[in-house]
């Protein structure tokens, strides 16, 4: 399930020595293209761990379900806060669910 990068939002992690999505991907899959935007080298090699999606500071990455496995239009969006994370899930029938929990003890 490949990450899809929105080039309008991605700023290539401007000031960073290494873009954050590139830094975290356990499979060395995220990299910048010639225009300085993040891309996944090989969609089929992604493990769907969502590390890149969670860490992107501008929310430019969407994790997509391959159509071969699930139907069109679902979304799962993380919002990472200090010691918490909030997830919004939107299913193919437009049902919205929200989940918020602690990721670390304060």
């Amino acid at each position: 399930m490949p990450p899809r990068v929105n080039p309008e939002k991605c700023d290539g992690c401007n000031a960073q020595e290494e873009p954050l999505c590139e830094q975290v991907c356990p499979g060395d899959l995220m990299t910048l293209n010639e225009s300085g935007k993040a891309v996944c080298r090989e969609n089929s090699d992604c493990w769907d761990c969502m590390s890149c999606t969670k860490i992107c500071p501008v929310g430019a990455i969407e994790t997509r379900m391959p159509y071969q496995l699930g139907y069109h239009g679902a979304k799962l969006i993380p919002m990472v806060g200090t010691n918490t994370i909030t997830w919004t899930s939107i299913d193919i029938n437009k049902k919205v669910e929200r989940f918020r929990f602690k990721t670390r003890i304060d």
Partner: protein
Amino acid sequence: MTLKIPENLENISTEIIETDLLIIGGGNAGCFSAIEAKKLNPDLKVTIMEKAHISRSGACSAGMDAINTYIPEGKTPEDLVRWCRSQVGGGPLREDLVLSCAEELNESVDDLEQWGLPILRDDDDNPRYRGKWDISIHGEALKPIMAEKAIEVGAEVYNRIVGSALLMSGDQCIGAMGFGVRNGKFYIFKAKATIVATGGACGLYKSYTSDSTDSHHQTWMCPFNVGTGYAMGIKAGAEFTSMEQRWVATRSKDFCGPIDTISVGYKSNIINAKGEKILEERYAHLGGDQAPRYIRANAPMEEWLEGRGPTYADTTHLSDEEVKDLKVDYLNERPSYVLFLAARGQDITKEPIEIYGSDPYIVGGHTGSGYWVEMDRMTTIKGLFAAGETAGGNPNKFVGGCAAEGKLATRGAMKYMDALELPETDMEQVELEKKRIFEPLFKGTDFDGVKPREMEERLQRLMDEYAGGSSQFYRTNEERLNYCLKHLKKLKNDVQYLQAGNLHDLMLAHEVIDRLDVAEIVCHHLSHRKETRWQGWQTRSDYPETNPEFDCFVESRLNTETNEIETFTRPYEQIIQGDRYKE
């Protein structure tokens, strides 16, 4: 960022790092090894060589929703050994190793909580048990928490360095070699003692979803752990145990999501197409829902084989509140599974969750596969220690046990290195390894070569169809194994044609090379065990019954003179009293 690739071997720069303790793989076990070393001796130089980035690498990259083992009040480490033994059908297992991990277990889990891991607690402030031994956590940040601690205590971390081979002096391990997947450098780590903790091996077998575009890595296990830690030892002639005891997990069908969470944590029955409670009804004599893990993993696939699929984890009894909790658990361990449910538009209180068996993996934190080790976790190679999924004989370690074993390996390594002087490095092996590593990069554009992915897919199909993958309902026989071994030799011969266009591809090339070594010994082990002891994990259609003669460990070792794999057995010793098949 894309780097200009050097044009030839002479342009590859070499970096030499000298250290006291080298840890190959900064995962769950590796981080604990490093932290323990710095605790015991803050002056010790501790170096981690990590293929990915330590903050999100290995099995725990996506997070965890449980610690599968934590000894509850009123139970003892010996009780945990009994449970562990019953889960692997009475063994054989190394009860001495299991017990030593059990004794360290709770403290290791308590460490995690102290470092900031949220462990869910009941009204009396006791950890909230999901089943008998496993406790619930909010482990989204489990990996960064371990990594930050390792860095905080002063371990030196080399990220994006892919370990490729051990550095040897005669029969003694004095470190390891590898390459930088980002900077294209060759690395030599010289160390007084080395701990290998690279996790298990994924991608030996084909995943049944891998034919669908974009789903090649729809696997239970982290697909970036490919068994390099095993391959390094195989090449150096180390002894391996129980490699035929493959791990197969029951997963949600089509999208590889966790099922234990639902079946154990939310008391969902496993049912077949007719709504029969398979475990309760068909496997009552083996313990029903409490049956050994391999039975539970194999049962749904037997239903499919017999024409009674699909199979499900029946979630239709859950309340809305429970569904919400369940999804929070998923979001902690495999968030993308919640996206899958959304993409199916599935209300799991109306439609149960469909389940299927995974492709087989080699993971010594789950079954007994891995290096044969002594109590101090030294392998049969002097100076080389193993921990976590890489170390064998000691099943059901999971997060807590891998952490505990990381500590134990460090203690062993530190004792060993006391008063040890590093011998001179033989530079010939170093030059040979450098050449071996970078060769696929320098084939030239006119070269008619083989892509790493092509070889990987050939290997995975071969193993799937001939060495008992999911398409064959995990069954194999002598003829198929011989076929497989014959073709593995051909694949090994074709390694010379592997071609890599960039450093990432170079990593993929070495991943498939390492998998070939591991796959080969897996076939030899499967072939040696002429019986069926753990259906699903190890099923021989030509020897469908258990044979008491094989109530022992199957071992293997590369004979470095003949370059052939030799297999033999070692006896099992029951140390903890009681019925081997019961908790």
